[in-house]
């Protein structure tokens, strides 16, 4: 296969995707893993990345985009915050103050639901049941499940996640040379 010029994906990302290929009899099954990879690295999946993924997999970009738009999970227009906080609004959390929690968090950060703070640090998204109803109301902030959240304490809990995320990204930046975006 001729390898077309890639705009977003680094050779390392392509290698990571290719490493998964033997798991599936059809390369199209790599669409979700590839989109996850991109979103993790760039915090969104811009159209250029969709074209890249399509080229790597050998599928038309329209089909990759078709899949992407189905899953609201993937951001396309702009990156989500360094902390992406899913605030559960389903029944068990709602019964224990989930709606309140969402409202408080949004007003504390001065954003609407699904919005991101101006400094790009925090995105708040309403979510359906996080499968942690025993800890209602709860928030999934990056990989941290914040349990039994009191609205008054919620922002502090998210700040703690932010500190960890910042530490991780500065450690990663120190370890690896930055990939230039206009390559």
């Amino acid at each position, binding site marked *: 296969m001729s390898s077309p010029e890639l705009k977003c994906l680094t050779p390392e990302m392509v290698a990571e995707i290719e490493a998964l290929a033997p798991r599936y009899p059809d390369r199209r099954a790599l669409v979700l893993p590839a989109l996850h990879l991109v979103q993790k690295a760039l915090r969104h999946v811009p159209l250029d990345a969709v074209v890249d993924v399509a080229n790597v997999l050998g599928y038309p970009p329209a089909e990759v985009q078709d899949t992407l738009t189905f*899953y609201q999970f993937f951001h396309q227009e702009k990156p989500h915050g360094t902390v992406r906080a899913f605030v559960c609004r389903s*029944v068990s959390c*709602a019964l224990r103050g989930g709606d309140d929690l969402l409202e408080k968090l949004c007003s504390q950060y001065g954003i609407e639901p699904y919005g991101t703070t101006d400094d790009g640090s925090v995105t708040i998204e309403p979510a359906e049941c996080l499968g942690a109803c025993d800890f209602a109301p709860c928030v999934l902030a990056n990989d941290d499940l914040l349990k039994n959240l009191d609205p008054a304490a919620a922002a502090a809990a998210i700040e703690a996640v932010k500190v960890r995320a910042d530490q991780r990204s500065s450690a990663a930046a120190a370890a690896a040379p930055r990939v230039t975006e206009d390559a």
Partner: protein
Amino acid sequence: MPPFEPVLLEAIGTPESHTLASYRSRGGYAPFEKLLAEKQPTEVIELVKSAGLRGRGGAGFPTGVKWGFLPKDHPGPIYLCVNADESEPGTFNNRILMEDDPHQVIEGTMISSYATRATTAYIYLRYEYPQAWDRLQAAIDEAYAAGLLGKNIKGSDFSLDIYLHRGAAAYICGEETGLIESIEGKRAWPRIKPPFPAIEGVFRKPTVVNNVETMACVSQIARRGPEWFRSIGVPADPENPRDPGSYGPKLYCLSGHVEKPGCYEAPLGITLRQLVDEYGGGVWKGRKAKAAIPGGISMGLMTEAEFDTPLDFKGPGTVGCMGLGTAAVVVIDETVSIVDFLHNSCRFFAHESCGQCTPCREGTSWNLRILERIRAGKGRLKDLEILLENGNAMGMMPGSTICGLADGAAWPIKNAINKFRDEFEDYIKRTNPEGWMVTDPVPALQIVGAH
């Protein structure tokens, strides 16, 4: 605490319960090795059939029978998909199993793969479970290192690979053919059946889709025997040859307005009241319950007067609920407005409808808009009729949709209005004294202000 000794949850809370060493020390993987050495795959299917195991994911279909639908002598490959897309509101037992005892799930996956002759198993895990992802991946790595996965396991001619596949926050991926489409890299639009996955599933090959808790049950049946499994739960009704019974232990998820929310293991058939009182420490704050969801939000509502219903595969149906579902019990106390509850339910389904079938896509969003209008003080008694009409028209049961999501969306509406009609009428009359009796079409939705 009631006398039932947990089995599926036996290790939960013990140190290092997620490791291979802990699982081995409890007798884990020895049953798999023994079956592999001594039994043919068909004998393993018979073993699971004889235990009377019914799928734990929601539909309650007998697991061994499902396996039996696979074509005989198929050249392969055959796939097993483990449904770990647990997203039914109120449900979290799979999360606990995967986080704290992943090997129990993996062993069940191995035994099930051996029985079905699957050589690749995909565990489709919802995105929202990062810790379960790490624990499962670590467990899979340990299993490979121990020679329990890979080529020619333990010198047999059976080979198996298990891969994790990550979802992307879509409820519909829990529907088995939606899950299959999603693994294939497409929108998770459920397929028209037949063909059923057993004939044509993922990558157009014969496929079995089983729930995480079902896998754990398979491990325990292999370890303790089918007689042990059948000694727990509610036996089949001898008068009804089509009743497969409700055997085995079950993981009940208890949340909402109880003192001690949590995942509790009890024999199938415990009543909702026992669960709340004996395990959940009763309704919180000394209040009374108004209602409860018996098995995830799709199953509808039980009123407090119905709390003595047994939570087996048959019980919830006897009081007008759709079924046992995921056995996720959510208790709603007397202070909650049933209008608010139904609004929450309608919002969920409007958000999660996959958009493929018009009655579901349009129906769920209209139901939500009507509920928003009612909550904005613009409701009319006629709206209740419209909601019921929608509820009766959408779903697989009325034959208007491809999958059961719409049935699940409709059930809470039907149950809430039929069981709490007075409360709805009072609410509407109180909040819309001028207009509650209007029957002409009225402008809906956005005009009332979406927030």
